[in-house]
């Protein structure tokens, strides 16, 4: 398909090598298992594969046609045309990790720009070049905290209001380590209490406390006193953020976070059924050598020009092997680039605008839904663009009702929180119009007495 060899070229090449046939090149392979017949569908031409993939894609319903109130860690935002026009440049997407700085300044400087923007957004000192996603970024925070205390602290306090996937990922990652994870009790009373409820769990063995901002339920809390409590015991605080919310919310750097992780998808990445997304990771200067992932630093070249290069590589697996801060190698380069283009295009004002639109539309939605009989706002806490509604019927039933009217309903919390049996997590972004919201309210009303 994409191999350029003509028949005569093959023959000539075999002659140069000094073998008779292609088979001769595979003599090291145990004969018994050599050249298995693979049972795969026959190859297609581009024209056919395009049609086939179109058919697969048309078997989906999409947020283009459904009105999307589903969030829970992935959000439907407007992606400006510039983003993809940059990502489509072969110079970016068909390059490898920038190991050779002389021919990779484009990628390197773009990562440096990315690091700078993340630092500005989070209020931290340093950012790495990315992690796989919001979940693994949290797991790497645990990894780092463990390393900061040289394995001497073995407790991680994990808020139950952190995204269920993130919590699960942390547990998977910690499986082979002595770390104990506490705090994520999923009962209603715990879920409804303020983050200060975690303070009693923090002790001298605590390496890390993990909270989310806004939390999984969309709530925003001031984590200042939690931060003080952790720091009093010598531990670290990690805050997993929705970076878009930081357009209007106080950055975690201001209330004492030691590590800020985040899911970068809202910054110009399409939903794409869950990936690839972008794991954000920022921390304070003192921890930079314990941080996982790639880092780009500024330096000069032998002609006296400013130049950029991967730096502090001695932390990484290709140098340190089993002693590396992490095993991460390929990360989310292109996604980091997408978010860099997105942030630079929106800039200070545009970024505030979109965050504010989300905030406003979500609050209007919440206010309207609250007025419907049978629906209640589950929490009184301030929220950003997502909130929990207690419904008169199980969420699954309501969502079916909504779907029939062209609405993709909110997330059914009973999947992850057994006590939240009738609780729907609703996200509202700038893509939702007042008419959409009014329609939602109308249908929810009908759904309640049907």
């Amino acid at each position: 398909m994409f191999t350029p060899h003509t028949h005569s070229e093959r023959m000539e090449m075999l002659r140069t090598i000094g073998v008779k046939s292609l088979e001769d090149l595979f003599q090291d392979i145990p004969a018994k298992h050599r050249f298995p017949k693979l049972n795969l569908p026959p190859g297609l031409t581009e024209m056919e594969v395009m049609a086939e993939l179109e058919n697969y894609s048309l078997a989906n319903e999409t947020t283009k046609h459904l009105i999307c109130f589903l969030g829970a860690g992935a959000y439907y935002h407007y992606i400006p045309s510039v983003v993809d026009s940059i990502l489509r440049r072969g110079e970016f997407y068909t390059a490898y990790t920038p190991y050779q700085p002389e021919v990779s300044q484009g990628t390197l400087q773009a990562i440096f720009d990315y690091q700078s923007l993340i630092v500005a957004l989070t209020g931290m000192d340093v950012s790495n070049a990315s992690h796989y996603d919001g979940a693994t970024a949290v797991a790497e925070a645990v990894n780092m905290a463990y390393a900061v205390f040289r394995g001497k602290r073995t407790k991680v306090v994990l808020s139950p209001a952190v995204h269920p996937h993130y919590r699960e990922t942390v547990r998977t990652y910690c499986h082979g380590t002595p770390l104990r994870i506490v705090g994520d009790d999923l009962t209603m009373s715990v879920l409804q209490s303020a983050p200060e409820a975690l303070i009693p769990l923090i002790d001298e063995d605590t390496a890390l406390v993990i909270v989310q901002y806004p939390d999984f339920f969309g709530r925003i809390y001031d984590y200042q006193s939690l931060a003080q409590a952790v720091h009093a015991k010598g531990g670290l605080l990690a805050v997993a953020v929705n970076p878009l919310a930081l357009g209007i919310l106080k950055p975690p750097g201001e209330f004492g976070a030691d590590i800020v992780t985040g899911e970068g998808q809202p910054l110009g990445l399409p939903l794409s059924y869950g990936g690839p997304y972008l794991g954000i990771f920022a921390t304070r200067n003192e921890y930079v050598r314990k941080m996982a992932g790639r880092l780009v630093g500024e330096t000069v070249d032998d002609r006296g020009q400013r130049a950029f290069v991967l730096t502090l590589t001695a932390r990484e697996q290709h140098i340190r092997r089993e002693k590396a801060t992490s095993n991460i190698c390929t990360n989310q380069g292109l996604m980091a680039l997408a978010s860099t283009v997105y942030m630079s295009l929106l800039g200070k004002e545009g970024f505030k605008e979109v965050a504010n639109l989300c905030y406003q539309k979500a609050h209007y939605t919440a206010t309207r839904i609250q007025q419907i009989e049978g629906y209640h706002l589950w929490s009184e806490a301030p929220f950003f663009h997502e909130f929990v509604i207690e419904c008169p019927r199980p969420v699954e039933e309501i969502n079916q009702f909504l779907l029939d009217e062209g609405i993709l309903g909110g997330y059914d919390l009973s999947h992850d929180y057994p006590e939240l049996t009738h609780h729907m997590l609703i996200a509202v972004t700038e893509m939702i119009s007042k008419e959409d919201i009014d329609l939602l309210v109308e249908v929810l009303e009908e759904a309640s007495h049907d």
Partner: protein
Amino acid sequence: MTEPLLCELSEPGRRGLRFPAADVPTTALPSSFEREDLPLPELSEVDVVRHFTRLSQLNYCIDYGMYPLGSCTMKYNPKVNEETARLPGFVYTHPLQPIETVQGNLALMYELQEWLKEIGGFAAVSLQPAAGAHGELTGVLIIRAFHESRGETQRNKILIPDSAHGTNPASSAMSGMQVVEIASDQRGNIDLESLRAQCDETLAGLMLTNPNTLGLFEENVEEVTRLVHEAGGLVYGDGANMNALLGIVRPGDLGIDVLHYNLHKTFSTPHGGGGPGSGPVGVLAHLADFLPAPIVGILEEGDAENPPLYGFITPSKSIGRVKAFHGHFAMMVRAFTYMRMHGAEGLKNVSEMAVLNANYLMALMKKDYHLPYERTCMHEFVVEGRWEDAPQIHALDISKRMMDYNLHPPTNYFPLIVHEALMIEPTETESKQSLDAFAQTMRRIAEEARQQPELLKSAPRKTPIGRVDEVKAAKELVLCCGVVKD
């Protein structure tokens, strides 16, 4: 001419993208949460487009020329992949939509799992891991869970050949395993004696890269897997080098218990300047229950009229999630497109041509560069970047000089067991002409090394920047732009 940083391009008050005014009544954010300053840069759309266009032009890329980075499989990335992955029916689906509304996605993932099973000889596949190293972590955690499930909690030793990629020991360590390095023998195979010596009751497993990072097929592979299995261990396969094996041999048939694929190597998804990748993991039957949750399965069988209902299944002893949602779906679409275009014949041809290209280029280069192992190679090979009669020249100098000839250098200084290694993987998408031109330039550089070594030492001269001061970068640590103009 260097390009300014975003923060340097910023002008207070300048605007790029705008949003519409709110169409709903507004509510004030509680002031205690309100952000005071958002120090993002301020640019116009044209500023942004020019900045990134100019930056892009400072990169080398596959679309420009051969990119022979050993172990990275920098093959051409078909343009059709970029179109299928951007089909609105895929792009605009939310990962948590009801499964009834995303049957297209699920069917595609299901098929992809099936194909990866077939290609590798495995019983089950999870598409969740985000990259190769992530697949390794997943695999080693599966090995750990397997032993634990049998009460063999003492098995915490992972053997890793000295030629292995750095992610192998790092992934093992992250999974709480003890790493023991195993030497290679003179033919580049695992030294069987060393292996036997480690086969005890603490053995959790062996991480095998086959073909290994020397580009050589492990001649004793069946003996190796037998030894490990007999000692109660499992064999992990680093599938980074699957580009040599499609339709050639199935790792599962050789006794590999668990293996990760790199869709971003073998199956042509672009590397993106450092990701995203995608690292699905395949396992033999005895490990199927341990795969990370969820994987895609058929919930209701279909019939002549109706397609099956696809959905998610959690394996009974799953190690749990390794990330949020279902993996890098857009990369799966690309890999699916690629595999669907090739079929069994086409994939076999990929590996054949990859191996042909590597052997051909090795044959052309061996007159000028020393080969540490004189064997038929698979999809890549390693040469030494040094000569006795050019003592001051290192592999690095050769690499930098290549840039002056518009070539991208191979992987340097890896694998660690070869002195001044230059690890060359041409991939199957390079033409004979391209290889001939490459070899010719390499010969010229070999001559320059003796006759004009300063050309290599001072290289590169024709690139946008010259050699960089890495020490300064690490010592003075400037990791972000100072401040945005106000």
